[in-house]
């Protein structure tokens, strides 16, 4: 009996000793799994997405990833292996249906794969688990719109506009959808309720509104277009096939290059290509060429083909003595196609010639802000404040510019005047908060905002105030609570987060944010790198980054301001 007890004790000891000794850390396979995850994250931080994906996949193969790690695996696969990412994403939302960002990412992948059924299934499920959000009805509406079902799209956009995160832009999309559902009267009514500044912010909206207004109540033809002949459609022409019309028109234009009737026939075709090509190939010396060019450009804008529209108007707009209307359209198109510096140059001429052209003036203000010349933009914008026809968005832009140019009291007064507006109130409060921070009152700024919201301007102001009150670490932790930081308007916040991470020594996070920012806003990313160099005591590096920026845009006030700090002060 005694010997059996001794044997049991010895065996237990032999079994337990290795287990005890391995308690110095996780079991070997556990450590390897965690090391693989660490390698994946390191590769991701370095920007080597394929390597990150490979390590995540290996870690998942050894032991199925769950929770946050699985979501990280999804985002790694999202960029390099979209097909695999769809499977991984399905696992993520199956385990946690509240992973809204992953669900939205999955919708993006389904759209890329042309799988509208999956888009609608995902969006409908999202709407069930997150019923107050505007994202899911919007995704449904977009899907219906892509499928050509304008009526259902308009219904979903209407729902979207009422949800948290929805707004006037969804109502504009609703109007566009109504137009696509062949309901010009409803579409015109929908467009009429929307603000001018909103409609003119997107060319396809402007073109849709123009089309439906023409369809329901033709307005007087503009001076330029008046010279163009009306489209000619006879019963014989209508019965011809598109190919026949195209060939007949081409023959007619070959015989008589300045003929208008063949262009009118081509304009009536469903496919815009032949019409745009014919107008582009037509002689500049034809007497009505400018009006046809404007019409063709509007058609291209309506289709979202801004590059084609720009190419059409470029020649007539840059010719000596070009009409101001064409130059205005050219300038606006330059801005829309991402050439704000050239747009500013063209629009300056237009506004100098005719200061009453509001569309040109507003586009010039936006272009000057985009190229970093807020002071020049301010001179124009301040005059728009008192204009009774200026939309609330333009007035908000004035308040924002006041803050951008350091006119803190001015910004505070103007933004306070818009604080209670139902559409721009939240943005106005963000400007008020920014002005309060600039005047050394971060606690009041946070009180004005109330909470950290998912709107870029308000979020930035909230985090700035938090950084001043509780420190940069607290601001960074608070920023983790922001659910969506993609898209337009977030670049300033991303630049700020990159700066803070750099200040805290998180170089990986900082570099990652800067790399992402550089893909969408290269000059802002360059400025952010310079700001980081200055904040981390590397003025020479900052100067090397800023000099090309200033050379490219001599009026870039922020770059010039930063450059001042790169040279030693005379007292040093």
């Amino acid at each position, binding site marked *: 009996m005694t010997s059996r007890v001794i044997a049991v004790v010895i065996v237990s000891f032999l079994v337990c000793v290795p287990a005890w000794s391995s308690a*110095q*850390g*996780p079991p*070997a396979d556990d*450590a*390897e799994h*965690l*090391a*693989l995850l*660490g*390698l994946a*994250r*390191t*590769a991701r*931080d*370095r920007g080597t997405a394929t390597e990150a994906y490979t390590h995540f996949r290996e870690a998942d193969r050894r032991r199925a990833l769950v929770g946050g790690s699985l979501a990280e695996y999804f985002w790694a696969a999202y960029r390099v292996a979209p097909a695999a990412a769809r499977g991984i994403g399905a696992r993520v939302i199956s385990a946690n249906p509240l992973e809204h960002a992953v669900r939205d990412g999955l919708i993006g992948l389904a759209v890329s794969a042309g799988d509208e059924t999956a888009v609608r299934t995902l969006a409908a499920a999202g709407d069930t688990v997150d019923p107050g959000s505007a994202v899911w009805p919007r995704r449904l509406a977009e899907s219906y719109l892509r499928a050509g079902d304008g009526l259902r799209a308009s219904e979903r956009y209407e729902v979207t506009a009422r949800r948290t995160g929805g707004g006037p832009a969804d109502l504009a999309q609703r109007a566009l959808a109504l137009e696509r559902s062949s309901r010009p009267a409803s579409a015109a009514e929908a467009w009429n309720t929307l603000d001018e500044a909103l409609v003119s912010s997107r060319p396809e909206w402007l073109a849709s509104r123009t089309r439906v207004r023409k369809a329901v109540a033709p307005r007087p033809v503009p001076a330029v277009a008046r010279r163009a002949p009306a489209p000619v459609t006879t019963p014989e022409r209508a019965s011809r096939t598109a190919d026949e019309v195209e060939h007949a028109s081409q023959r007619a234009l070959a015989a008589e290059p300045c003929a208008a009737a063949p262009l009118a026939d081509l304009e009536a075709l469903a496919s815009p290509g032949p019409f745009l090509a014919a107008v582009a190939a037509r002689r500049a010396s034809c007497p009505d060429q400018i009006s046809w060019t404007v019409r063709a450009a509007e058609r291209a804008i309506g289709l979202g083909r801004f590059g084609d529209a720009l190419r059409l108007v470029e020649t007539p707009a840059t010719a000596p003595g070009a009409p101001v209307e064409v130059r205005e359209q050219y300038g606006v198109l330059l801005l829309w196609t991402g050439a704000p510096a050239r747009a500013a140059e063209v629009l300056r001429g237009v506004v100098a010639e005719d200061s009453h052209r509001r569309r040109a003036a507003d586009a010039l203000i936006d272009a000057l802000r985009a190229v970093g010349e807020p002071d020049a933009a301010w001179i124009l914008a301040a005059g728009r404040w008192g204009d009774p026809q200026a939309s609330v968005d333009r007035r908000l832009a004035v308040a924002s510019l006041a803050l951008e140019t350091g006119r803190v009291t001015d910004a505070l007064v103007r933004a306070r005047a818009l604080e209670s507006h139902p559409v721009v109130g939240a943005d106005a409060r963000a400007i008020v908060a920014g002005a309060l921070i600039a005047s050394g009152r971060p606690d009041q700024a946070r009180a004005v905002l109330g909470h950290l919201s998912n709107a870029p301007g308000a979020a930035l102001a909230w985090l700035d105030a938090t950084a001043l009150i509780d*420190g*940069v*670490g607290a601001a*960074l*932790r608070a920023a983790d609570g922001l659910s969506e930081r993609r898209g337009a308007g977030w670049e300033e916040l991303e630049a700020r987060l990159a700066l803070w991470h750099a200040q*805290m*020594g*998180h*170089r*990986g*996070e*900082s*570099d990652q944010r800067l790399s992402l920012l550089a893909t969408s806003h290269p000059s802002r990313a360059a400025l952010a790198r310079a700001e980081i160099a200055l904040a981390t005591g590397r003025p020479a590096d900052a100067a090397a980054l800023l000099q090309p920026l200033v050379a490219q845009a001599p009026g870039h006030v922020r770059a010039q301001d930063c450059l001042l700090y790169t040279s030693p002060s005379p007292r040093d």
Partner: protein
Amino acid sequence: MRRWLVWVLLALVAGEAGVFLWKNGDVVSLSRPADALAADPRFAETAHRVLAQPDVTRRVLERIADVAARRSDSALQLQAITRIAAVAPGDRHVQLRLAEALRRHGRLDDAAVLYRALLTPPGVPGAGGSQ
């Protein structure tokens, strides 16, 4: 006589406690709750003074690493975990934490080297995760 002896003893104990607090005030202050330390603006200064000492217990180092993580102070966290790794060289869990701290601090190459070393089974030449 006995009363006098008690007073002398009490004075000696008080003196001893005073000297202890004077010499180890920083370490004592780190024994406060982590939330209170995370909100203390002088924490980083205190932690750096403690880390400058040659002999610091693992408990204190763990406290500094924990609070530094809460404050997103990756440099301080890395410093504390490096010291922990020095006192526990064979601890794979600490090696993993060190690699993670290196990654968070932006030392991606060093982090990758350490992670790769952890992928090699213990006992194989080159394993051990030394930096």
